[in-house]
């Protein structure tokens, strides 16, 4: 009996009138868990009942605790007839099952009815007493943490990243059971909701077991999806990345939640006086990243070299004090460094096996150094015919058994229960081999999806082939990972690798063999280091790595494509779809490439290609964020070539188009501030000091012996992309290229976590979902009209968003996520979820100024101490490289300029990053003091030390939530809340709702119906988060929005599945309220030169 669930029903409010005569309601509540049900007393004649019930106690297995939802039903008591249900609340008690998450669920929940929507609210308190179960063969996996976030969650550090985990559960869909013919829609909907809740609970538990088996304690990047396969059943599947996470209990060491990846990119721009550039000083939250991380490295050096006391502090003593806690692992790290390097060469330990099977990672952002090289996007699709899922439990009630032959290349037997598993295994195998062909041993940013129409199902998987640093993946190197986690400085990883890859461009370098390329590509020497080859363009499914060096801003790039297909049955249908797929892929790719060139950019991040199958068409929608990577060559323009050169008018037309395209490219370059330094005219007008500096360096360099390389580099410019206009189709394509309107001034958009080039986010965010359903006119559908319609639909939707959010300007739409569905013939449904974040143009200027001034003020104080410290860091070149922030910062600033290391010291303008150096040196100082005090080994001194650190870092460990009156819950698809810091993860939110109506017109038609429903879903998510004690949802995603209507019958039905991570965030402004410690204790060096020379 390993768990006791306790539930108390407190009160209700705003209940609907159930008795027309009295205009009142006699409400009571049924509380059900598993097969046990309790009831409250009837609270007569009130719309605001106060039940104040006793504690209802359920004694249950922890297995059930994981699987079952708590079901609360509010009813109206009726003496003469059956009691009427008012509505239900399902509460997932999973967050109460792990110790670090929520301890109690308490609050107001909307009472939800699948026919009437929200009908009042109920106040419930839920607690769980969990007894320790020492049974080794247990079926439960309580305690495994789940995160939707596709990066290492903010208050944790990854000790080990174990690898891929997947599982799927199948069942009969209640909607298609024979009983559905005799039960009410409400009963059917509720059966479905409950089943899916059960299935996802079970799935999560099973995944948890795998995690425990792999010796992990958490799943990051957990993605759970439903396949509503209609008659053939219901599949709930999930993938994720198993990690061993360690909670960082001392908040002083936490990174701020603000886009960590921003920071490195800013560095070159830091002292830029132009407000349009995006620099940040110590006073911006972003900088905190630097603060919190860089010192820990130096810290570890310090502790290991001089302070033996610290190393003795046991690792289990975490949470007691900052110094002791941090000291242990670091010490260990040093000792193990060589050891692990050896291990690594000896080959993988046996624990590796499982991961080896599929070396996939659902993460899209990584600790620096994790990603060594990126090969490119790998994807695999497969068309399958759905058959009834063999599930013994439901055999009894299966009515008609239509059996399909399976269209399956590997000829799997349809009777095999593990069919779906096998399908996915096959696809994953393909992905793996693709990755191998690219010379990569791993796939990152991995995701899987399906598109189902009738009995045809397209399974898709995609990811980015990559070479990872093996040290991360080994269990023995936990400290290495820990170090990674703590050090956001690039270049760290050069150690232990055969070749040193420069920080900002290493990931761009090709992992495959140049002479044995898997596909034709232009390879050029890296613009950064000039040592390695890079491709001319780079497509990836991951977020922009933190260390990547980018010029200008990014933008959302979409490729949209429709293809008509004949209506067909079964195999014929599947065959025609699989025949179409390669062409679609090719065209999507071409469109992406053209649009990327048109934007003057050379890399895509967050690429997501969705292929949707409908009755008579296929839709392809690819979204990605284009950026200009400094390491890659400047993209050539697009050149149009006519086929009939003799026709004068035609030629004129072509040249006109060419001009238009050239203009667009020029305009886009200006818009996204892409001004690579190679073009001399732009130097003058450039708002970036970085390109200026860089070009200066280039010139000086060309005087030296690097002439050849310079020539080699320029080669890229001539490489224009030729588009041949040989028929009307091609003409259309060119036209459609030009129809994409840029967002209005003040707006930017991307589908990645953060926008390169923008960092000064305000806390003004607006998450939204927008849905459009468009009916195509039936007549004469051709591919072209279809394409145009689809294109217009998407463009208009975007325009509409820009208009609606105009009050937030200047703002960026982040994580723009489009999904396309083809619910019936000639009907296209597009759903967009994104978050609009306002940024502050002016703040950047101010904050960038501050540090410079500070430097000057503090320049002379406390000189010897800070000198001695960094110098010590550099004394041992081998070890200090990974640790020394000075080196790295320098490298970062200068390496991308292509100057040989020896030249750096003289050619780099120190003042440009002096303030940057400040920040970390400040921290080193700070840490040094903390350590000194900490080493006294008395708690008192530890206490003394930490407020200094916290005060300075503007962190406060006690989360204080002000909004006590109205609990505002922020939602975002991003993994962070701008201007706020996540202090606690409360658990995963995974909710599934069905809403149905038989009075569609009365509810305002389809728009009114869906509008209300989505608002209700948001409300229920917010209520659950608030009840967990949270105030925000991060990594929110609407995974499914299936809408069906039957206007003739005045009916509609919608299914929505959403998930995210419930968190507690503390606003940075609140943190800043804490008085900042006098900064005199922390002094600055005169310049970075002191450090390096």
């Amino acid at each position: 009996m390993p768990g006791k669930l306790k539930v108390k029903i407190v009160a209700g409010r705003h209940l609907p009138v159930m008795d027309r005569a009295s205009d009142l309601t006699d409400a009571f509540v049924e509380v059900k868990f598993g097969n046990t049900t309790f009831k409250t007393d009837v609270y007569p004649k009130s719309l605001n009942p106060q039940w104040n019930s006793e504690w209802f106690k359920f004694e249950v297995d922890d297995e059930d605790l994981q699987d079952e939802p708590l079901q609360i039903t509010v009813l109206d008591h009726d003496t003469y007839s059956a009691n009427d249900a008012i509505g239900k609340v399902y509460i997932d008690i999973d967050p109460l099952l792990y110790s670090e998450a929520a301890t109690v669920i308490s609050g107001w929940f909307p009472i939800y009815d699948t026919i009437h929507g929200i009908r009042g609210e109920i106040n419930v308190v839920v607690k769980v007493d969990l007894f320790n179960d020492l049974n080794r063969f247990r079926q439960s996996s309580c305690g495994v943490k789940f995160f939707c976030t596709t990066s290492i969650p903010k208050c944790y550090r990854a000790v080990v990243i174990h690898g891929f985990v997947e599982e799927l559960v199948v069942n009969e869909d209640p909607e298609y059971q024979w009983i559905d013919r005799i039960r009410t829609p409400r009963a059917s909907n509720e059966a479905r909701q409950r089943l899916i809740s059960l299935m996802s609970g079970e799935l999560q538990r099973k995944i948890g077991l795998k995690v425990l088996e792999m010796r992990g304690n958490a799943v990051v990047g957990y993605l759970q999806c439903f396949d509503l396969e209609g008659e053939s059943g219901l599949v709930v599947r999930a993938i994720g990345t198993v990690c061993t996470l360690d909670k960082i209990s001392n908040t002083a060491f936490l990174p701020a939640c603000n886009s960590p990846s921003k920071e490195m990119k800013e560095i070159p721009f830091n002292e830029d006086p132009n407000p349009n550039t995006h620099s940040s000083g110590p006073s911006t939250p972003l900088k905190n990243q630097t603060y919190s991380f860089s010192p820990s490295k130096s810290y570890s050096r310090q502790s290991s070299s001089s302070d033996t006391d610290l190393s003795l502090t046991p690792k289990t003593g975490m949470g007691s004090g900052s110094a002791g806690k941090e000291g242990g692992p670091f010490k260990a790290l040093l000792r193990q460094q060589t050891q692990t390097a050896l291990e690594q060469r000896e080959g993988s330990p046996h624990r590796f096996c499982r991961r080896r099977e599929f070396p996939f990672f659902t993460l899209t952002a990584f600790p620096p150094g994790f990603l060594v090289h990126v090969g490119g996007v790998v994807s695999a699709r497969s068309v399958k015919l759905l058959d009834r899922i063999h599930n013994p439990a439901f055999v009894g009630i299966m009515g008609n058994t239509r059996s399909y032959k399976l269209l399956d290349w590997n000829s799997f037997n349809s009777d095999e229960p593990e069919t779906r598993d096998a399908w996915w295994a096959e696809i994953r195998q393909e992905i793996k081999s693709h990755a191998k062909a690219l010379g990569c041993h791993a796939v990152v940013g991995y995701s899987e999806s399906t598109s189902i129409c009738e009995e045809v199902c397209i399974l898709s998987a995609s990811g980015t082939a990559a070479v990872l640093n093996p040290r991360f993946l080994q269990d023995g190197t936990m400290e290495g990972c820990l170090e990674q986690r703590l050090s956001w400085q690039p270049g760290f990883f050069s150690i232990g690798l055969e070749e040193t890859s420069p920080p900002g461009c290493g990931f761009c370098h090709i992992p495959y063999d140049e002479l044995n390329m898997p596909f034709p590509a232009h390879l050029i020497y890296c613009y950064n280091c000039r040592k390695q080859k890079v491709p001319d363009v780079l497509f990836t499914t991951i977020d922009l790595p933190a260390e990547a060096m980018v010029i200008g801003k990014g933008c959302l790039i979409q490729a949209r494509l429709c293809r008509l297909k004949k209506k067909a049955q079964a195999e014929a249908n599947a065959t025609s779809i699989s025949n179409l797929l390669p062409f679609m892929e090719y065209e999507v790719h071409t469109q992406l490439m053209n649009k990327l060139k048109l934007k003057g950019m050379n890399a895509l991040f967050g690429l997501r290609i969705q292929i949707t199958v409908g009755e008579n068409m296929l839709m392809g929608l690819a979204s990605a964020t284009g950026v200009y990577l400094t390491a890659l060559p400047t993209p050539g323009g697009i050149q149009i070539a006519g086929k009939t050169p003799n026709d004068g008018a035609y030629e004129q037309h072509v040249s006109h188009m060419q001009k238009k395209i050239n203009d667009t490219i020029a305009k886009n370059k200006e818009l996204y501030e892409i001004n690579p330094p190679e073009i001399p005219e732009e130097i003058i007008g450039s708002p970036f000091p970085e390109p200026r500096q860089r070009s200066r360096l280039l010139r000086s360099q060309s005087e030296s012996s690097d002439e050849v390389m310079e020539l080699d580099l320029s080669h890229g410019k001539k490489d224009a992309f030729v588009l041949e206009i040989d028929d009307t189709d091609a003409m259309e394509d060119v036209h459609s290229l030009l129809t994409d309107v840029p967002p209005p001034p003040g707006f930017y958009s991307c589908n990645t976590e953060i926008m390169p080039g923008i960092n000064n986010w305000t806390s003004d965010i607006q998450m939204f979902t927008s849905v459009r359903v468009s009916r195509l006119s039936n007549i004469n559908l051709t591919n072209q009209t279809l394409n145009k319609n689809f294109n217009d639909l998407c463009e208009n939707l975007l325009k509409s968003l820009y208009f609606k959010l105009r009050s937030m300007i200047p703002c960026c739409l982040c994580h723009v996520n489009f999904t396309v569905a083809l619910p019936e013939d000639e009907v296209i449904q597009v759903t967009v979820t994104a978050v609009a974040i306002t940024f502050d143009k002016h703040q950047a200027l101010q904050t960038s100024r501050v540090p410079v001034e500070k430097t000057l003020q503090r320049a002379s104080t406390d000189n010897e101490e800070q000198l001695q410290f960094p110098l010590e860091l550099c004394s041992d070149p081998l070890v200090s490289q990974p640790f020394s922030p000075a080196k790295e910062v320098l490298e970062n600033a200068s390496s991308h300029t292509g100057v040989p290391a020896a030249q750096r010291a003289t050619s780099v303008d120190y003042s440009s990053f002096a303030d940057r150096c400040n920040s970390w040196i400040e921290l080193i100082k700070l840490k040094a003091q903390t350590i000194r005090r900490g080493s006294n080994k008395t708690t008192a001194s530890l206490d003394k030390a930490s407020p200094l650190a916290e005060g300075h870092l503007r962190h406060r460990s006690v989360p204080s939530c002000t909004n006590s009156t109205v609990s505002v819950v922020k939602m975002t698809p991003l993994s962070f809340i701008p201007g706020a810091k996540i202090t606690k993860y409360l658990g995963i939110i995974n909710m599934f709702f069905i809403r149905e109506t038989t009075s569609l017109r009365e509810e305002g038609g389809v728009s009114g119906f869906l509008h209300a429903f989505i608002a209700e879903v948001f409300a229920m998510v917010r209520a659950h988060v608030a009840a967990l004690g949270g105030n925000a949802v991060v990594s929110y995603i609407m995974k499914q929005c299936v809408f069906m209507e039957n206007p003739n019958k005045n009916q509609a039905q919608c299914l929505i599945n959403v998930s995210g991570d419930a968190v507690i965030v503390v606003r940075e402004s609140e943190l800043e309220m804490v008085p900042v410690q006098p900064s005199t204790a922390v002094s600055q060096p005169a310049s970075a030169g002191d450090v390096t020379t």
Partner: protein
Amino acid sequence: MTNDLDIFVGNTTLIDEEVYQLWLDGYSVSDAVSLRLRSGILEQTGATVDVLQSDTMDHYRTFHMLERLLHTPSKLIHQLHFQIPPSRQAMLIERYYAFDEAFVREVLGKKLSKGTKKDLDDVSSKTGITLKSCRRQFDNFKRVFKVVEEMRGSLVENIQQHFLLSDRLARDYAAIVFFANSRFETGKKKLQFLTFEDFAYCAEQMIQNWTLGAVDSNVDDMDVDLDKEFLQELKELKVLIADKDLLDLHKSLVCTSLRGKISVYNEMEANFKNLSRALVNMASKLIHTKDVRDFFIDLVEKFIEPCKSDKWTLNDVRLFLTQYTTSAHTLDAFRHQALWDRYMSTIKSCLLKMYHD
């Protein structure tokens, strides 16, 4: 290609104040779109008409869903369905309960019944306010009326508490409720020069001095109904005009003190008895419901119009009424001093407020 469905749902409910006002003003979506077009919004934002149409529809849908909650503002504050910042909630409520001057002057003092509601199309065509808006405003009046009608305690406070209105708006509603309850006639042509503000001021004065609440703060309807006992007693004041000696004495006292101070002395002296009779007669008849209804007409016909025709200035009226009230105290034979003050202080405030063009 037509958009069957087109929605935008924000985690924080997006509210456009301009569109909200158009919605409150009862414009249809297409009218609202054309009005927005005229505001030049497209030029500012570079959007298209389709976008504007879709945006307007979206907002209208949101407002439609919010309307149910706005009927009981406390629900809007506590509901979980729409996440709206408190300041926005206050704006929504305040604007929803705001009313048009032209409309309120038409309905003020009328019974808030179905019959009146049926006549709203006349009001609409007369005022140029859309019927939809008229209905909303009427329903607001009626809703507030129904809720606070039978309630104990201060009318203004009750309204404020239940409808979360600003102090100013709650006071206006108190006046509307008070007028509707006593059914004061305000629509006659002679009263057209009076604004709602004038009436609201008078209502406030009457609530403060003439209702049950003015003497006993713990009775039902304390602020809504006039104090019947007081109205009954007002008959006693008749002595001031019935007793000829008293009337003469009163006149001479007033005249003596006003000589040289008032610009219309002669007219005042000539008219004193008429004016005094008018004021006292009104008092004595207020026990009848019909005379209560005609209260403002009487004030205008019997006092304001004669004074205006004699070109009294506002200051003259003030001097006269002040002196008229205080002089009665020195009349030894007149024993209803408290009653007189309770009556006259309100009459004086009302008359001064109403004495304008």
